[in-house]
């Protein structure tokens, strides 16, 4: 039976076949033989998740734009598909031309969340690429990775040949050029990796040696060859207007999670919330101009036919001319029946005016993220939002005709007490009261308040990188307490699986030895850990035991100031000193101002011309 026949046979049996069939609008932009360099872009989760991801659309367009490189997509198959593929001995194939993964020159993974790590191993294995970097030969692809989780690359150091740290738009092409050059000139894999290490923002883990102290902490991470830099500095694109942004997106046939035009209006955030890794990693703040955004919106609308545009960024409400942007977009999109939505509303920055305009088009539920229940706790995490702010915005929303509100909180934050948990319930009650304060004739029917409480996971490059995560017993006790106090009429309470957050914490601050655990867990059958139905906590714990590692060492241990952290050789631009200072302030519940109001000296001010706010006013 030939390949296509086998595929057809499988597709007849598998659930949700369209996940695997491709042929979507705006894909398959080029032919395999038209380009010398083949890039296999792997999203280590299902099609529906991967196709919702903006970063992938950007890089897909960016690589395919170059005349010499081609990019095709790979996603993590669901378990039924994996079983069928194994039965037919089919390798992991690209969505576009159905080439196996190991026939690509570069295999690139995007690292969005730690719980996708086992899928990386699974995809490599199905794609017949040797799992570990050291096992790969001259004819195997170069395996690279980027995205937020690349900032602590150590748990994946055994499996990834080269990491790209920071913004990908420039370094991606530079990296591909090196690999193309190797292909043309035929130099060795080793030389290629060393060449890659010379690029700014590229970290090649095999060129570094790690030593450990007796207590298990890291003693040092040092380069073992001259090409490797002592510290790898993240890449930053300084001007978003001149940075590549796609003018067309692949449009899936089936519904995916975010099935709309995503317009990245800015990158970075100046708020300085202390739990937020993205807020630190994506500094400094850079805005796309209104003219550029309107131009992109019109082109994307024409090339996709989407019905909705969402403005995307960490803190869209902070965009300097948000009301004008929304007004202009609405004006131009009205005849095209395109609605505009704002996904990450900051409760203290959305103007009532814009809310009223949004409402003309579509009334989805509004999302607010106070993150903590009391003012003290919000000061600890530097979430610069007061109860009055929140309730004011909620009132505006109810008066504007909304009746469905989602509130996001975290539990397990450093210094949290029962009072802070009770504060969550208090806030929910006050939100309900605001609704009933609006006269019956003016408010929309069907009040729905959803309270989601996630488990806090301390992350690298945040002021809480030294903090201990709550133990499972504590988390479970707190969730029980929340269930009781949130048993309020009109409130739906959602909480997060604590076991997943525990494991996430191990990887988020893990060292290279976590790679052994990952490999062992994968061999035992762990994969698709982000999904309840496939997550196997028991197998993960077995893997830790067999590797002689204690997960509590990674998740529940408070680090000291002078401990070498496994990611210390990665330079995010933010200094360790600044983060420590922020940690100390958090212990005193002292806030730090938004750095648009004046530079707080996070470290980026040292890089010339990178942060426009730091340049505007010296430290």
């Amino acid at each position, binding site marked *: 039976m030939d390949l296509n026949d086998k595929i057809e046979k499988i597709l007849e049996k598998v659930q949700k076949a369209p996940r695997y069939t491709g*042929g979507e609008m705006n894909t398959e932009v080029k032919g395999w033989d038209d380009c010398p360099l083949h890039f296999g872009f792997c999203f280590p989760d299902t099609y529906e998740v991967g196709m919702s991801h903006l970063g992938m659309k950007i890089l897909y367009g960016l690589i395919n734009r170059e005349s010499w490189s081609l990019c095709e997509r790979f996603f993590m198959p669901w378990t039924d598909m994996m079983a069928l593929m194994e039965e037919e001995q089919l390798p992991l194939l690209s969505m576009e031309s159905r080439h196996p993964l190991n026939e690509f020159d570069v295999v690139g993974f995007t690292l969005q969340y730690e719980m996708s790590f086992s899928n990386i191993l699974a995809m490599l294995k199905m794609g017949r690429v040797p799992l570990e970097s050291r096992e790969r030969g001259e004819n195997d692809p170069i395996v690279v990775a980027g995205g937020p989780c690349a900032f602590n690359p150590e748990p994946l150091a055994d499996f990834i040949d080269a990491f790209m740290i920071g913004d990908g738009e420039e370094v991606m092409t530079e990296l591909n050029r090196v690999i193309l050059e190797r292909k043309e000139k035929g130099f060795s894999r080793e030389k290629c990796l060393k060449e890659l290490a010379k690029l700014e923002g590229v970290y090649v883990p095999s060129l570094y040696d790690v030593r450990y102290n007796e207590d298990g902490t890291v003693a040092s991470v040092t380069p073992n060859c001259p090409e490797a830099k002592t510290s790898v500095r993240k890449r930053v694109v300084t001007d978003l207007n001149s940075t590549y942004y796609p003018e067309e997106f692949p449009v899936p046939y089936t519904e995916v999670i975010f099935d709309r035009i995503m317009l990245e209006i800015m990158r970075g955030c100046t708020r300085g919330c202390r739990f937020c890794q993205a807020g630190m990693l994506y500094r400094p703040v850079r805005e796309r101009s209104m003219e550029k955004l309107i131009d992109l919106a019109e082109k994307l609308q024409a090339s*996709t*036919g989407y019905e909705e545009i969402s403005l995307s960024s960490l803190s869209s409400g902070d965009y300097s001319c948000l009301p004008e942007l929304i007004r202009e977009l609405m004006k131009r999109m009205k005849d095209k029946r395109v609605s505009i939505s704002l996904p990450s509303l900051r409760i203290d920055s959305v103007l009532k005016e814009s809310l009223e305009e949004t409402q003309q088009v579509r009334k989805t539920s509004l999302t607010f993220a106070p993150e903590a229940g009391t003012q003290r706790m919000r000061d600890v995490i530097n979430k610069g939002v007061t109860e009055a702010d929140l309730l004011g915005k909620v009132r505006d929303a109810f008066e504007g005709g909304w009746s469905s509100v989602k509130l996001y909180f975290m539990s397990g934050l450093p210094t949290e007490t029962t009072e802070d948990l009770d504060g969550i319930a208090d806030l929910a009650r006050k939100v309900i009261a605001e609704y009933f304060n609006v006269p019956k004739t003016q408010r929309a029917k069907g009040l729905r308040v959803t309270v989601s409480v996630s488990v806090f996971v301390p992350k690298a490059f945040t002021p809480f990188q030294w903090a201990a995560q709550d133990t499972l017993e504590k988390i479970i006790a707190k969730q029980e307490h929340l269930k009781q106090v949130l048993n309020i009429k009109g409130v739906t309470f959602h909480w997060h699986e604590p076991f997943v957050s525990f494991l996430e914490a191990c990887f988020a601050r893990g060292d290279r030895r976590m790679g052994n655990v990952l490999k062992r867990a994968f061999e035992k059958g762990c994969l698709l850990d982000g999904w309840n139905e496939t997550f196997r906590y028991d197998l993960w714990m077995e893997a830790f035991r067999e590797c002689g590692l204690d997960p509590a060492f990674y998740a529940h241990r408070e680090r000291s100031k002078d401990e070498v952290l496994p990611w210390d050789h990665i330079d995010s631009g933010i200094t360790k000193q600044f983060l420590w200072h922020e940690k100390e302030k958090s212990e005193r519940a002292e806030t730090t101002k938004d750095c648009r109001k004046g530079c707080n000296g996070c470290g980026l001010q040292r890089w010339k011309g990178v942060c426009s706010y730091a340049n505007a006013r010296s430290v």
Partner: protein
Amino acid sequence: MRMLAVFEKGERIRHIGHLDIQRSVQRGLRRSGLPVAYSNGFNPHILITFASALSTGACGKREIMDVTMAEDVSEEEFLTRMNQAMPPEMQLSEARAVDQKHPALMASLRAAEYDLLIREKDTADKLVGAISAMMEKDAVLATRKTKTAVRECDIKPLIYELKGEGQHIYATLVLTEKEACKPGMLIEALAKEAGIEGEIRVLITRTGLLGMDENGNLVPLETL
């Protein structure tokens, strides 16, 4: 003005369900920039209907969409712009402008033509060989599955034409709003006749949708 357009659902996307195909056509229309009419109301949608839903797993050679236009456009322009706006697996082959009062396609639908490719040669030979014997019977029984019930029915009166050639079975089967013989029912009956048990792998392609002209002849629906 309404535009009746014939389009394809290619083999690669045959597992896409009808709702997703509908949405894809709508997005194609939005990409084309053609002046389509929208419904009024809070969530405006394009005024479009499809002659018949094609099941998941089946390909279609001549599926028909019926789009209400806000302004008149020529058939050529409709075709050109839509073909630029649609993915390769969903290209259009014909368009015909009709006036607003033209009867609804669904109501005029009488039958559909199918090309059933039997994947295994042995099975194909047996099924093709069983055609004449089966058609000589007074009644041909097959199971009809609806949402609520499974029952036996006689599909003989629902078969207009049936012939075999190599690994293909060509069939013209009744398809109206009320009554239909699905290709699966036909294969089931043929398998019974040929004494084949177990799963039969068939690639179903609906090659045409038919209506009836004033002389009682079956003709392509879009020409009525």
